[in-house]
């Protein structure tokens, strides 16, 4: 009826339109604001130039009163240079004779455009001998505002990804999904079946069409219901020849409540999920720094480990609670569990805003972790039910896209907000976004009854034993999954903010640097995964990714002392992002291959157990990085983690080559 590919192209057209309008709006606002600033600041700069001229003039007067001729003030030029160096708004200082001819001046290009201020006279015992002029740099305001250019770029980038995220969901919600349902109804109707009706009747063009369909179907179903009632009322007088006809009508119509023809919309969860991840990611750029600022001595725990605890314990709790949350999802339903999970998330974030010491921060981060475990599993459960078997890949893509895009947006925006408003206010904003997620959830998600397609699998210790006894899994976990997670949390999430903060960079810059990792993951994730599918050698991609990640982590130490150090860290982030784009999907593919050996429920249990075990790396990452940093410093620590990952990559590669050569009986 309506080509879905055409509708997706429609969505991209709308995205392009939004971006064009966005760029124009931002450019217009930035340009106009700059004019406004110059209008106010320029007079203030001139007043300052006047003050500087008077102070210098007094000094020159003292020298003239001491008998030094105006033309012989040799020390004026170095003194003027000092003034210009101390006051970046001042471009030039000039001593002139009574005819206005320059006698002495600060160094610099005399031909360069300058805004000369009113001159101040210099005199000896009341006799005016010359003038002193001070020029303001005409581009001072523009130059000083230049350092927010990167922030403007970050806002544009975040808005770009937000536009993709929001408009794809909106078009799916308002156009694609209703069109798909209408197409399904039409197809059913062409075959003579009128069993289902659309649930949503919106007040737009599609909604009017949906209403017409719904009314038609409801009308026929009601007629059938009345016929059945009359048939039953006849009792023994029921004509026998009518039974097959009624049966046929029953087959073509249903006596039940009109239900949605297609199971719950997968896209419905995207916005609430994105907002949830966005709220949790806002603190990514500054959490370790926040922990350091709240540090208090904890008995038996070193300083370095103590400040890594809020991150490590959060990840540990998420790892431990996720399997339990899975079992809960089956009982409570995904919508209810999602809402339930948002409560500790909101409470945790709000109380973190008011945390005044490290213990309070750790406590509320743990509460947050409970919410994260519940909510993420609820979302996966909903996706599994709504997507069914045929759209599972699309469902997982929605989950991953929401997570990575939110990571990108949250990290950069969080850094900017922390810089301007402070850490505490940023956590309060995160709480507000969590509540917004809850509202979107209540509007978008339909509750479905408990079913078999849930994401929750009850794990047993035997499942862990199963995979740990298997060599294929051993290699994957020890040489690939754990090192990858360790580098992600140890380098990216812990050491990067600490290192850049140590170098004097603001939370805003830290957020923008960390954002690069997510951008690369988004840009290269799908293409490298497709390439890996085409090449067919997942172990190659996993090894190459690990080794590239390891090498990239050496950059911070190699670039130590370089100018624009943040750029080098950004480059390292980009390369690690590329490496992870290659190796993480490949690890997933290898996991599925290894799990296929078990089959059935054991396969699902093996995957779940693997997912829990790989989090060992993510928990250890910040703790190890913190401990090493206490001895070696952050850049060396990152390098050491890199060497470890590089070694694991080489090990994985060698063993994989061995597997390929022997190939028989592997895993038995």
């Amino acid at each position, binding site marked *: 009826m309506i080509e879905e590919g055409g509708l997706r192209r429609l969505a991209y057209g709308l995205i392009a339109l939004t971006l064009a309008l966005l760029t124009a709006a931002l450019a217009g606002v930035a340009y106009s*604001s700059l004019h406004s600033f110059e209008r106010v600041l320029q007079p203030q700069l001139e007043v300052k130039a006047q003050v500087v001229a008077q102070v210098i003039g007094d000094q020159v007067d003292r020298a003239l009163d001491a008998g030094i001729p105006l033309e012989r003030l040799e020390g004026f030029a170095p003194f003027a240079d000092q003034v210009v160096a101390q006051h970046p708004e001042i471009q030039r200082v000039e001593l002139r004779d009574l005819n206005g001819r320059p006698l002495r001046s600060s160094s610099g290009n005399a031909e360069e455009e300058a805004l000369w201020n009113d001159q101040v006279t210099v005199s000896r015992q009341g006799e005016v001998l010359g003038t002193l002029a001070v020029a303001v740099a005409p581009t001072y305001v523009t130059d000083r505002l230049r350092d927010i250019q990167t922030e403007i770029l970050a806002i544009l980038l975040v808005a770009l990804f937000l536009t993709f995220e929001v408009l794809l969901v909106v078009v799916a919600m308002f156009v694609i999904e209703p069109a798909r349902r209408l197409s399904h109804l039409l197809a059913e109707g062409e075959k003579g079946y009128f069993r289902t009706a659309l649930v949503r009747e919106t007040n737009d063009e599609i909604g009017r069409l949906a209403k017409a369909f719904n009314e038609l179907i409801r009308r026929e179903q009601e007629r059938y219901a009345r016929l059945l009632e009359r048939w039953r009322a006849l009792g023994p007088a029921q004509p026998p020849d009518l039974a097959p006809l009624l049966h046929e009508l029953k087959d073509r119509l249903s006596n039940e409540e009109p239900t949605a023809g297609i199971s719950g919309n997968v896209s419905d969860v995207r916005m609430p999920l994105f907002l949830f991840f966005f709220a949790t990611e806002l603190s990514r750029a500054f959490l370790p720094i926040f922990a350091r600022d709240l540090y208090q001595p904890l008995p038996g725990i070193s300083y370095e480990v103590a400040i890594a605890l809020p991150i490590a314990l959060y990840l540990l709790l998420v790892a431990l609670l996720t399997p339990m949350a899975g079992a809960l999802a089956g009982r409570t339903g995904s919508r209810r569990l999602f809402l339930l999970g948002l409560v500790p998330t909101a409470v945790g974030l709000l109380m973190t805003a008011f945390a005044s010491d490290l213990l309070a921060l750790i406590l509320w981060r743990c509460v947050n972790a409970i919410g994260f475990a519940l909510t993420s599993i609820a979302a996966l459960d909903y996706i599994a039910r709504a997507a069914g078997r045929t759209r599972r890949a699309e469902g997982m893509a929605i989950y991953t896209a929401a997570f990575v895009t939110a990571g990108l947006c949250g990290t950069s925006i969080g850094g900017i907000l922390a810089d301007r408003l402070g850490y505490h206010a940023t956590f309060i904003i995160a709480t507000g976004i969590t509540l917004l997620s809850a509202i979107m959830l209540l509007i978008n998600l339909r509750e479905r009854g408990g079913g078999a397609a849930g994401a929750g699998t009850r794990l047993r210790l035997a499942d862990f034993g199963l995979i740990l006894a298997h060599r294929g899994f051993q290699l994957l976990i020890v040489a690939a999954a754990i090192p990858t997670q360790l580098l992600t949390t140890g380098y990216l999430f812990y050491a990067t903010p600490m290192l850049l903060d140590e170098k004097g960079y603001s939370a805003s810059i830290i957020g923008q640097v960390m954002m690069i990792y997510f951008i690369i993951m988004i840009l290269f994730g799908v293409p490298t995964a497709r390439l890996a599918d085409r090449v067919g050698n997942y172990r190659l991609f996993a090894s190459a990714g690990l080794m590239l990640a390891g090498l990239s982590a050496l950059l911070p130490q190699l670039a130590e002392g370089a100018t624009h150090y943040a750029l080098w860290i950004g480059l390292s982030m980009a390369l690690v992002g590329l490496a992870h784009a290659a190796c993480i999907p490949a690890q997933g593919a290898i996991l599925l291959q290894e799990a296929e050996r078990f089959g059935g429920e054991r396969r699902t249990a093996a995957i779940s157990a693997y997912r829990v075990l790989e989090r060992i790396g993510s928990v250890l990452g910040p703790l190890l990085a913190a401990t090493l940093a206490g001895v070696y410093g952050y850049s060396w620590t990152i390098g050491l983690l890199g060497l470890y990952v590089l070694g694991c990559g080489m090990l994985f590669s060698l063993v994989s080559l061995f597997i390929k050569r022997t190939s028989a009986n592997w895993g038995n």
Partner: protein
Amino acid sequence: MRLSFKIAIYMVGIIASAVILLTYLTNAKFRSLQEEVERSRFLVLALDVKATAERGLALGLALEQMNNLAEILERLHEEHPEILSLQIVSDRGDSLHHVGETRAHTGLDSALDRLRLIGVRDSQPPVDISDGATFGMMLPLVNAFDQMAGVLVLRYDRAPSLAAARDVTFDQLKIAGLALLLTAVIALILTSLYLHRLSRGFARMARLLEQPDERPGQHKPADVLEGRFAKFRAQVHALEAKVAKVDAALLQADRNGHERPPPTISR
């Protein structure tokens, strides 16, 4: 509500979020820059007074003996009306020379304590003693033995700075509001044009669904869509025929079995 309008709302929402964030950031940057420019202006004056006082200290004079300082403070206060007060305070916290409204300020004592604690050096940056109503700075006055003999306290009015910031903020809000209004109008128009074909398509489908009954073969479908809807309507008619047949049979059965005619199904 039209589809294009609904989608345009989301588009404008995203643009509004970005514009608001940008406006806020640039405004915050402007305020900090403005404060910095103003502060540096008064710092120049304060450093000049400090240099004069330290020249006297280097000659062995005590701060309270330097009468020219009082004249300098008075002159500065007259030349720069934004300066609320200038004070020379001894290292024990006693006011030696002052001009303008000098009020007791708890921040002063703690700032003095801080200076005593950290020690003084040539490149000592001024200590910030601003509060809600005023900006303020404190500079140590150091003798030839690098000992703090006293401090210079300068306070200046926040009001001009706040007024300028308000003006700029108002300007920015006007610009942002205008930009958003323009964007919203353009978004509505362009989205409406862009989705016009889609909307027309759905309207046509609604008409096709509601088309009156026709005999089979009466009208050849113009395209695939019309053909499909014709097929759909034909199935509906076939279903209704079966329902009517059952209805008639039940009516007959009812007449045969009961005296009272049963209710008939009405369209």
